[in-house]
């Protein structure tokens, strides 16, 4: 993975820059010592490591603004970081870049039930929001599996999902407002407690922009009232085709479950060995279907789903009798990644989305690829929305195996695009999938996205080297190549 060439002039000014930043963020908020910088050299994509130029940990919006203004004026790159749980290297530092950590922005500023929202600082963890309101019967819907650690600011940057997306949406569908500091230090507010702000949808654009457009310093999230009851079915099928068929028929019957997850045989076995959730071991595919709402509704829908599953050839079917049993159904799924981590020295987690009906094709071709590369793969799948997480098992201590795993992963994602899907459903492009972007977008598509970046950050100082495979100067992107007087276009009907 090639990153932008470090600026030697900036590198040589490291201590001078740290001193200047100390004038903005006093005390221990500026880290320049090599050993103390080390904890920041990687995020959730641990295969990549770079020690940042300087780490700065501001505590106020004014400080964030002043740090960005300083970096802007001095041509210094900035990499924003929340909790550092990105699985795509979104907060991978740059050697010549300031790492701007938002961890000290960890307060919940306001909970407003009448408007069903909360204003929180970006360093608050996803789970902390739900914890703060669950006593009153509310929750924040998006629930990425890293929710205990990941920050809401990072969720905004990555447009994080979770297992309840099909019914409750991703981060972008659950935000009302943002406060954003632009690279030149200007603070703007987008949205508020009302819906659908006019003008270009900057809330929508900031969400999932992977730290390339601005630094979020406050988030207004929507809160939802928790359902009265939640129940789940655990259904085993002899083939993944039958499980896929069941998913399609449930949705075809007009049922949108709160969650609908699928695991393949290797994932089932790894999970069962790890947490002993009571998963059937003689099935090829396992579905967890979760239904939520008033008891009357859940009872009714469980009956419907059960009937559909049986008609699709389910060979095992359990319905959770109580909360403990429901959680046990999920225990294996939620522990799938660490469970796979136990059966292999290393694993590489992929994140493509496909049209659901392509699942059998994709699984078959993935098996072929697995044989080709000589690497095992286990699959967990947000079946309702087509988001596939193949886990490629490898051993980083075997020379060349990481590269092989990455190549295998790249082939899987290209396969996802080939069947009508996309490179990433919820983990982001970051550095990980950056060079695969041309599999999905042509040069014109990418140039248009970069022009949006130019409107926010014309000098390309915010998180460069992420998302876009080739960096272009904004002046170059702005040029137009026009051939005048080429009108005839005789074919277009005109009046």
């Amino acid at each position, binding site marked *: 993975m090639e990153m932008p060439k470090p600026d030697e002039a900036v590198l040589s000014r490291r201590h001078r820059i740290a001193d200047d930043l100390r004038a903005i963020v006093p005390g221990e908020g500026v880290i320049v010592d090599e050993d103390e910088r080390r904890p920041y050299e990687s995020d959730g994509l641990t295969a990549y490591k770079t020690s940042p130029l300087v780490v700065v940990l501001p505590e106020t919006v004014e400080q964030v603004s002043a740090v960005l203004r300083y970096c802007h004026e001095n041509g210094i790159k900035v990499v924003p970081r929340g909790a550092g749980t990105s699985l795509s290297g979104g907060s991978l530092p740059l050697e010549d870049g300031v790492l701007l950590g938002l961890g000290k922005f960890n307060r919940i500023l306001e909970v407003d039930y009448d408007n069903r929202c909360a204003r929180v600082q970006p360093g608050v963890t996803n789970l902390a929001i739900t914890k703060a309101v669950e006593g009153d019967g509310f929750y924040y819907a998006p629930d990425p599996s890293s929710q205990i650690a990941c920050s809401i600011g990072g969720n905004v940057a990555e447009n994080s999902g979770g297992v309840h997306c099909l019914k409750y949406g991703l981060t972008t569908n659950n935000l009302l407002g943002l406060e954003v500091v632009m690279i030149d230090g200007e603070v703007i507010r987008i949205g508020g407690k009302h819906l659908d702000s006019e003008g270009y949808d900057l809330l929508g654009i900031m969400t*999932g922009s992977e730290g390339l457009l601005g630094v979020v310093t406050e988030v207004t999230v929507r809160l939802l009232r928790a359902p009265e009851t939640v129940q789940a079915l655990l259904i085993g099928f002899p083939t993944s085709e039958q499980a896929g068929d069941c998913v399609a028929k449930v949705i075809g019957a007009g049922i949108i479950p709160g969650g609908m997850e699928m695991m393949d045989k290797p994932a089932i076995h790894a999970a069962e060995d790890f947490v002993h959730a009571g998963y059937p071991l003689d099935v090829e595919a396992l579905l967890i279907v979760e239904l939520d709402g*008033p008891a009357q509704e859940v009872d*009714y829908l469980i009956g419907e789903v059960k009937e559909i599953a049986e008609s699709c050839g389910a060979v095992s079917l359990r319905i959770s009798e109580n909360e403990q049993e429901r959680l046990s159904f999920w225990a294996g799924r939620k522990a799938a990644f660490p469970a796979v981590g136990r059966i292999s020295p290393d694993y590489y987690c992929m994140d493509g989305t496909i049209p659901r009906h392509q699942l059998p094709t994709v699984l078959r071709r993935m098996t072929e690829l697995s044989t080709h590369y000589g690497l095992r793969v286990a699959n967990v799948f947000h079946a309702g929305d087509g988001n596939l997480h193949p886990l490629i098992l490898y051993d980083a201590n075997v020379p060349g195996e990481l590269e092989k795993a990455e190549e295998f992963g790249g082939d899987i994602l290209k396969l996802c695009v080939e069947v009508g899907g996309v490179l*990433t459903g919820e983990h982001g492009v970051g550095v990980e999938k950056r060079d695969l972007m041309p599999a999905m977008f042509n040069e014109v*598509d990418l140039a248009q996205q970069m022009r949006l970046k130019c409107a926010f950050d014309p000098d390309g100082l915010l998180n460069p080297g992420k998302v876009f495979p080739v960096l272009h100067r904004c002046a170059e992107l702005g040029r137009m190549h026009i051939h005048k007087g080429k009108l005839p276009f005789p074919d277009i009907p005109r009046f």
Partner: protein
Amino acid sequence: MTQFVPETAEQLKDAVAWAVAEEYSVAVKGAGTKAGFGRPMRTEHEIDLSKLGGITLYEPEELVLRAGAGTPMAEITAALDEKNQQLAFEPPDLGFLLKGESAAGTIGGVIATNLSGPRRIKSGAARDHFLGFEGVSGRGEVFKSGGRVMKNVTGYDLCKLMAGSWGTLAVMSQITVKVLPKAEKERTVLLYTDDPATAIRALTDALNSPYDVAGAAWLPKALAASTGIDLVSAEESGVAAIRLEGPGPSVEYRCARLREAAGALGKTEELHSHRGKSLWTQIRDVMPFAAAGDSRVVWKISVAPSDGPDVYRQLLSLKGAEAFMDWGGGLIWLAVDMASLGGADVVRGIVAKAGGHATLVRGESQLRADAGVFQPQAAGLAALTRKIKNGFDPHGVLNPGRMYDGV
């Protein structure tokens, strides 16, 4: 003026590329149903998308539909009806309000204006259901973004940017949306009350309950009477309405629970089947202000729901003012006599104080030109808006001035 009616995406590209090369301004038109909405423009030419229509992909079990931008909403609704599905954001038909007759427009127009109905509070806005597009930028280049799957974070979410951009950034040719099953059953709880604060209290309690409310509106007495629905006008008072949707047994249970809760605040009633449908369609389409001869200026006002009653009271003191609330108090539809720049400033002032925004939906073209249609932006946002426009349409060829001066 030349009107181009491209029949293929290639022809659309040629027409835009020509306009860009010659620096001609063009109006982008679907069915033209919202010509009287938005800032008025004077453009040299027009691109009519009505021949770029037709559903190109519909997979009900995958919850996805793709269609040419010029596809009439009627065609899309008919296809969805056949599979018992819908666009869950409930796109309004503003034709009655704007031109006195049904005119639901095209899917391109619905997305470009990001218009959503009463179910917005539960299911999200048009932008939340917009999965992908192909189009031609104001640079005359064909580009795409998004896809056809439900979950996608590959690159910037340009779909969000296109939704609500009023054709000022690019001309969309193909649009992909998420579609959802229709609910099996629908019921509406009515609470008769003249007091907007009591009404919003009831709606807030319902929205904060676990009963999954799919519509929360309040009509004052005169507007309740205008619906022509017997149970809505029966008590000769204002009416708060709470809509529930879902499987039969669930709807009946939730309806009973919410009716019981609302009962503490006043007399209640329930609407079933066609009566309920009629009420919510009238609210969605702003029918209370669409009567023949009503030429008042109409505003769509979005505020924090808890600010609804207070903003409503202030607005009601204006000349000829009538209003009703949707989205649990977060959306106020206002009709008012003040067709002047000064009148617009008063409305905007009241709304701005509450931190919301006001959109001038119906008004003479002179008023829309003088007062603007959207709430003026703070300096930082306005500058960013221009830069974004410049990145997509550097010569200001597409729908110039439709949103703001120069945008």
